[in-house]
Structures are given as C-alpha cells and as structure tokens.
C-alpha cells in the first residue's frame, strides 16, 4: 500500500497543544477537495469523516480503489453538490491515511510512534483541521457536515469556532459517548491487544500486523452499524454455499461469512494502532462536560443554523441522543431543525442510499445557500 503519491498534505507549522498536555508541531494533515472554491469563498463545506473514514469522500479512493465512503451523498448533483460547493475533507489526526498518526515516525527517535503517539481527542482533531480553513483563506464555511464521529467533530468545531460556519449538520451522533458506546469500543481495542502480533503497538518494526485482532474488532463494530431487522432481512439463517449445516466451526451462515469478509478487507486499509487512538478519542468525547455539564453553553456563542438528523433503526447513536442536542439548542433559542429518517439500515444509514435522508440533506443545504 504505497499511499504517498496520491495524498495531498498540509504541513502545520503552528504548534498545537493537545488535551493530553503535549504539544505537537510540524505535523501533516492529509486532505482532499472536490468542486471549486468560488471568488467570494462562501461555498466551502467541511466534511468530517467517521471512525474508519478518510479524506477520500467521493469518487474513486486512490488507495483502496473503491468508491469514496460518502459517494451517495457527495458529488455532481448529489446532496452535497460538488458543482455548487467546494468540499474539503481531511484525515483526522491519529488516523492512518497521511495525517499525523501512530504510524508516523517520531522525529526525536526516528522510530514509528506506535503507542508512544499522544492520546488525541475530538477537540484536538478539529483544532488541527482548522488549519485547513486558514490555508484556503476561508473566513466562514458555508457548512460543516458529518455523521457518527464526524457529527461529534461538527459539534466540537462549532463550539470551538462559533462564527466559522453558517450551517451545521451533525448526523447520527451524540454529544457524549454512552457506556454502551465505550463498551463496544473497548471490545474492539481488547481484540487488537489480544493479538500477539500487536506487541504493545510495536508491530511495524516486525513487519507483522495484528490483522486477526483488528478483523475481530471490525466484525464486532460492524454489527453495531446495522439493525437487527436489516440483518435478518439480508441474511436471516441463510447458509453460505452449502446445502446443510456442516457441524463444525466454518462459516455455515451467510452472516458469518459476511462478517469475516468485512474483517478481512478492513485490515488491508486500516492501522490497528489508529483504531485504538480514534476509538479512544470517541470515548473521551463529552461536549457537555467541557461546559460544566451544560451542553447549551457549548453553542451559546454561535448564530449558525443547525440541522440535526437521526435514523429510526440506529441503536448506536439513537434518536434520543440526537434529540438531546436539539433540546440543548432550543433551550438557548438557537435556529435548529430536526428530522428522524425512517430506515432499516441502522447507524450505517447515513452512508447508504436512503432517499429521504439524501433529499433532506440536499434541500436543507440548497435552500440555506440561496438565503446565504
């Protein structure tokens, strides 16, 4: 996987003080853009990716040779129309697709960081990405958009930079990771740690990766992205290329085979240490706590227009957690719209072809842009 030639990076010279207390400087942010920035620089949309996403939002991802993770929503004439808007997305710090992360070399020791990389937070991620806005000379973004961990970044961004976005769209997310969210992330981390190849995070030097642990982490997480009904309808108890049960531990059921496949393709594109760092950042996320338990205070400085979207079958970041954000915004009289989209596709709905979602997103953006 030689990634370097397809990755645009911004080298951030300004020091960034992380929540953990450490300061980083001269660090790279890998990013991609789509569409073009207009003369007034008022058509830029910053998209934030989820846990395992990257900067390649749409079109062909040159690293994986697959469609970008949000190809349904972003592109020519799509919800986030690249004929109209200038879309920017960057790989989060802690990630593994070019931004400063645990697979980078520590300039002091010239060794790969591994778990010596500082623990980062959602706050650190958005503070790092803010440098891109300055890089493009954009005074105010037309919109900031993201689902799942991307939505958490949206919330943190507008809290940190209240006058830097006109519209704010957190999708299928939460303002604070629940015990259940943390539990599933811990399961993934422990699966990685249980793989002897992980070796306390020092696997790069051995040239062997903890692929089995990372695959199990992905399999467990993948279940949380789908709904029971969706799984039942797609797989039920269907058998995998066999007439009957084999009375063994091979993948008898299609669902088993599917999960194994999801695990195996994931390890080709994702770094196990990055998985640890990013899930940790999500677990540490508690926006209300940053404001002494009053979530409304996180938004009191902004005049931005919010649009919050949840999905009926999302049990990872259920509607109520999205509504709690709406309630916090209404408590301070903020301009906030909210819709819960009917879908059987679980948390993953925001990534998939869910027409009601895609049209709501498009209508909100396009109407807001006209009034801009």
């Amino acid at each position, binding site marked *: 996987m030689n990634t370097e030639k397809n990755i645009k990076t911004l080298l951030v010279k300004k020091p960034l003080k992380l929540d953990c207390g450490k300061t980083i400087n001269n660090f790279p942010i890998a990013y991609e853009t789509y569409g073009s920035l207009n003369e007034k620089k008022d058509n830029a949309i910053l998209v934030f990716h989820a846990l395992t996403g990257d900067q390649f939002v749409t079109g062909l991802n040159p690293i994986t040779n697959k469609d970008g993770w949000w190809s349904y929503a972003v592109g020519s004439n799509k919800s986030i129309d690249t004929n109209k808007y200038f879309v920017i997305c960057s790989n989060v710090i802690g990630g593994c697709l070019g931004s400063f992360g645990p697979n980078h070399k520590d300039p002091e020791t010239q060794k790969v960081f591994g778990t010596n990389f500082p623990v980062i937070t959602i706050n650190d991620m958005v503070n790092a990405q803010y440098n891109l806005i300055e890089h493009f000379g954009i005074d105010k973004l037309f919109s900031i958009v993201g689902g799942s961990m991307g939505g958490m970044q949206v919330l943190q961004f507008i809290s940190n930079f209240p006058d830097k976005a006109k519209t704010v769209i957190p999708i299928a997310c939460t303002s604070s990771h629940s015990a259940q969210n943390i539990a599933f992330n811990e399961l993934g981390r422990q699966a990685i740690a249980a793989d002897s190849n992980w070796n306390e995070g020092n696997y790069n030097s051995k040239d062997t990766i903890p692929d089995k642990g990372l695959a199990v982490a992905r399999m467990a997480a993948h279940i949380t992205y789908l709904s029971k009904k969706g799984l039942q309808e797609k797989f039920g108890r269907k058998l995998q290329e066999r007439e009957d049960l084999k009375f063994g531990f091979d993948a008898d059921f299609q669902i088993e085979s599917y999960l194994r496949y999801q695990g195996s393709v994931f390890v080709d594109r994702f770094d196990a240490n990055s998985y640890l760092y990013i899930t940790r950042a999500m677990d540490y996320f508690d926006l209300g706590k940053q404001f002494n338990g009053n979530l409304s205070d996180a938004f009191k400085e902004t005049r931005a227009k919010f649009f919050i979207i949840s999905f009926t079958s999302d049990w990872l970041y259920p509607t109520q957690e999205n509504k709690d954000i709406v309630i916090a915004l209404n*408590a301070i*009289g903020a301009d906030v719209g909210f*819709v819960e989209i009917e879908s059987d596709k679980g948390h993953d709905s925001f990534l998939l072809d869910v027409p009601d979602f895609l049209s709501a997103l498009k209508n909100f953006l396009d*109407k807001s842009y006209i009034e801009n």
Partner: protein
Amino acid sequence: MKNEFKVIAELIEQDKKVLDVGCADGTLMKFLKDNKNINIRGLEISKDKVQKCIAKGLTVIEGNAEKDLMQFPDKSFDYVVLSQTLQAFLNPEKVINELLRVGKKAIVTIPNFGYWKIRLHLLTKGTMPITKTLPDEWYNTPNLHMCTIKDFVHFVKSRNIKIFKSIALNNENVSSINDTNLGVKNLYADLGIFLIEK
C-alpha cells in the same frame, strides 16, 4: 392560502419570533417568513410534512407537541400558533398551558362543533357529523376532544386566560366574537380563532 391563515397572519406584527405548532407542510410559516419577516419555527409530528417544510427552506423540528414543547424556554416566542389541532391532543389543557408558557401570546384555532351544519347533521341523521373541516369518520378521526366556540370561551375564562381577540370564520366571512353575539357566532361559524395570553 386558506382564509384561516390570512386571519392568523393579520394578528401577527412584522419581525416577530413565532412557533407554529403542528405546522403541517409549512404554508403558514412560509407566508409569515416571506411577507412579515417573521423568525419562524415549526413543530410537526409527520415525517412527510417535515420533509416538505425542509424543501421550502423552513426550520422545523420533528416532534410531538404534548412532549416536545417542554424543551422551549418560557416566553421564548412572541407568538405560538396552534391551528385546528387542540382537539387531537390527549390532554388539551396541558397543551394550552404549554403554549402560554412558551409564547408571550398564543393563537389557537378550533373547528367549531357548535356550527349549525354539525348540529343539523346530528339532529337529522343521528350519526357523527362529517363536514369540510371535520372530514373523518368517528372510527378514524384524530379528534379526541371536540369543543364548540362557546366551550372554548368558557374554558379560557375559567382558567383566567386573557382573550385579546376572538374571531369567527364562516368560509370567506370573518367577524369578531363578543359576549353578546357568542351564541349566534357559535351557531354560524365553522371555525373560531383566539388570541390569548396568560
């Protein structure tokens, strides 16, 4: 736009902040936004209708007035509008109290069950009345607590709620209701519109 909305719009001054509870497809909201520069929000229970509002560029929250009005601070709107839905709530009194808590004033419209056509229908046919404003059968109507204009006036007075304006609507015909003509309006109007405050 229906006459009811024109009357409601006339009750609201320019540049105010308004919440439309049960805003449906946003027709009234759009009119108020475009013609009176109203800072307008909607609350709507139907997903389809919320989508229609979004397509019009309106700020709407999907939700249920009986549960979701709670989240708005006291007197955070100049006006709260409730058009022809009071009778559909499990607890209309609670909703009225919430409207008057959230809004400095509330505009409530009710389909008048005292309208002569309704009375006549029940009297002559002996079946539950079906009219233009009340088109559903008894078994599928969303209306749980029908009332007449007189009932509503008695109710608000008993709760010490101030009535600023009472308007009777009969198709295109708009007239004001007062203590002396209440009985007549209760017979001839199919809709009552009330501007109230507590």
